[in-house]
């Protein structure tokens, strides 16, 4: 199909000087400011959205640092207070033999966020042609990133549930640390970053829009 597409010279909306609404999909002529149907502001797929992606991504990366450095959980067990960072917690779990849980936590807290960072950065870079990637592959990657995004809050959920459930005062208390907030922010920032990514750009790169006035 791809090759067929190439052969038949698909005309994209952007190439045709049109702009589709991002929420309802109605196609408008190039200069339209708002969607006539749903009123969503229309913006042409350009570098601005990519800037947003980068901005949110960087913000997410910044807050991801304290999320790993500061303790995620402050566990007070019979008067002994232990602070656990994410990686420290994974190591503890692994040491206790809970490899399954350790793998889950490690994947959810480390692999997925880092993968997301990498994926978003890779997409953004591929848009600006620094990296070459097949458009369809890029699209699949984007779908994956969007899908995974909602699951990377699993850590935050665990911490929130633990701290609300385990408040046995002296014997056992779990308090969220600074890292929990940071991690939640990091996840949120990367989600926003992924949302800010305009998937139309994927195809723009493949099929660059014609110069103005070349059509008609």
């Amino acid at each position, binding site marked *: 199909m791809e090759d067929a597409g190439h052969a038949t010279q698909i005309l994209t909306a952007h190439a045709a000087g049109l702009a589709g609404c991002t929420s309802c999909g109605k196609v408008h002529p190039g200069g339209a400011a708002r969607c006539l149907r749903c009123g969503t502001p229309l913006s042409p797929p350009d*570098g*601005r959205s990519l*800037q*947003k992606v980068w*901005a*949110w991504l*960087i*913000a*997410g*990366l*910044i*807050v991801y*640092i*304290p999320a790993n450095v*500061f303790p995620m959980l402050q566990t007070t067990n*019979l*008067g*002994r*207070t*232990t602070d656990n960072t994410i990686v420290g917690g994974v190591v503890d779990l692994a040491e206790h033999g809970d490899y399954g849980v350790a793998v889950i936590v490690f994947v959810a807290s480390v692999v997925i966020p880092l993968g997301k960072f990498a994926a978003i950065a890779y997409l953004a870079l591929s848009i600006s042609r620094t990296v070459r990637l097949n458009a369809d592959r890029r699209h699949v990657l984007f779908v994956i990133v969007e899908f995974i995004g909602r699951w990377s809050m699993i850590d935050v959920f665990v911490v929130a549930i633990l701290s609300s459930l385990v408040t046995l005062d002296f014997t056992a208390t779990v308090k969220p640390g*600074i890292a929990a907030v*940071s991690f939640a*922010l990091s996840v949120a*920032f990367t989600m926003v970053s992924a949302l*800010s990514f305009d998937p139309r750009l994927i195809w723009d790169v493949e099929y660059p829009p014609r*110069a103005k006035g*070349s059509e008609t």
Partner: protein
Amino acid sequence: MSDSRPGDMEIERRKPSFWRNLSLAWLIPIAALLVTLFVAWQTWLDRGQTIEISFENAGGIVAGETTLRYRDVIVGNVESVAFVPDLSSVVVTARLDRTIADSLPEDAQFWVVRPEVSTSGVSGLTTVLSGVYLEADFEPSPGAAFDRFTGREDAPLVEPGAVGTRITLRAIDAGQLSVGAPIFHKGIEVGKIERPELLFTRDGVVFDAFIREPYDELLTSATRFWLTSGLSLSLGTGGLDVSVGSLANVVRGGLTFDTVFSGGEPIMEGQVFELYENEDSARSSAFEDPFENTVEMSVEFEESVSGLAQGSAVTLRGVRIGTVAAINARVRETDERREVRLRATLSIDPGRIGLPADVGEEGVIDFFSEAVRNGLRARLGLQSMFSQSLVVELVNLPDPEPAALVTLPDTPPLIPSVESELPDIGATAEGLLTRIDNLPVEELLDQTISTLATIESFVADDALRDAPGEFVALLADARGVVGSDEVQALPGEISGVVTDLRAVTETLRQAETVANLVEALNSVQTAAQSVTDFAGDISGAAGEFTDLITRLNALTEKANQLEIEEFLASARELLDSADALIDTEEARAIPQSVTAALDEARGALEELREGGAVENVNAATASAQEAADAIRDAVETLPDLSVRLQRLVREAERVVASYGSESTFSRETLNSLREVQAAAEALSKLARAIERNPNSLLFGR
């Protein structure tokens, strides 16, 4: 193909300005960065400051878990536990709140709180679950910020932040006290004692005690401390009284204090008190210990004052009147040279001298200046014969060099001193030892041993052992002699003779037949003849008797003169002789002869009575006269005999008395001798009666 439109120009599009194209979204990472940096900075600030505390051992301290608390609030956390390079102690690094760390003074105390069960209760129980923690106690001093400390091994007994007065107690031994023992005042616990420490400078122990506010106001210089064991036993007229205090008091011991006299002065922190054994001694100490209203005097000595110390006694003719307050050396400038003199400052209690208590310093100085004029001098003296401790003696010398009390502007008045008469103890002791060494102890021992050996062999001698046996045998012999039938019978026979004689004379007296007189006279004539013969016999017997008595006399005299052994020997001899004598036929025959003679006389008289021949009266009278003469001759020896007998008895009595008045032997001997005496007296009477009136023998008058 005519296309009027211009061809596409190759134009370079105006690039939008970088800043205009910049999205506002970039603010977000900037904000995130700022927030993150702020959090980091805040966290770094919150880390606080590290301090290092060294402990002998870090029992229970876990890096990262053990907390550090001040007034039971967590103010820090132990970061690491490490050894010092030479492994001699453990250094605990703890991170403290900055505010706390900034206020740590140099003498801040740190100790490990552990669960502890002791006689005073259970403490630190929470650490069983939470693990040990470090507790800090200090007086906050902002800005001090010391960061190296030495930790205590145990918690201070006084809880951190307690207010009160710390004092020092001094006791002979700490046997009845343990750490944390309570201090009572009228039964209320007002303080605690801390760990007793041995005093190396003198015998005893000292320990700190802490009296809590507000009870510390009760402490004055008149306060005395004594031991209360919690268990008291007293035995009085009311019976046995046992009172048991609280169990803790029994187990730990305790102290009680009270003010034992009025007028004490307030004390300083760290005041030293003596600890007394019991309440009595504590209360009585009030009358002996403190010197009041003391006036300072001083004495300078040229000789060595080694042995004199602060606290040494100052005596006035043997009575303690004060104490040596200080000893120091000072250089005195004289005209020619500088010399070092040792000056002792004396605290003298005027009350002890007998001066009124309010006499004041001037009064005391006046007293001493007058006393010095009268010969009072100070000198060093020995405290006791066997100690090297010195005392300052104030003595009145009979004829001293004139001197006066020297009043100096900046020092106490100076009492003139004289050279002491201290014997050189060292030399004396050495001499004594030498002399002891020279004593012929071994010789003496040898002699003693040989003497004892001699005594032993002497005592073991058979002869000595037999001596008492022989003595007993002797006495038994003597008793046998005296107890022999013959001797016993002798007095009886004599009395029998006398009775017979009395009966004869009675018969004679009662005879009324004058008619038979002639016959009788005839018979009398023959009887008189017989009597004459008999009288001759009597004379012979009397001679033998006299001989016996003479021997007895000689024996008695000898016995009197002899020592006891000789006496005993002689006594045995005497008794043997007496035995032998008494045993002789003749002696036995005496009574028989007398009896026979009297029988014959009686027979003669009977014949006379029966005869009745008056005509023969003249012849008979003549014969009778003759017979009477013969009798008188015979009888003349009788008084002599009786006198001798009496004398014998007296001698014998005396001998026997000297021998022993109470023994049976002497009593028996005495009795028999008395009977002999009685017999002698009867004989004497008979003789005298016959002498006075020989006719009575014939006519019964």
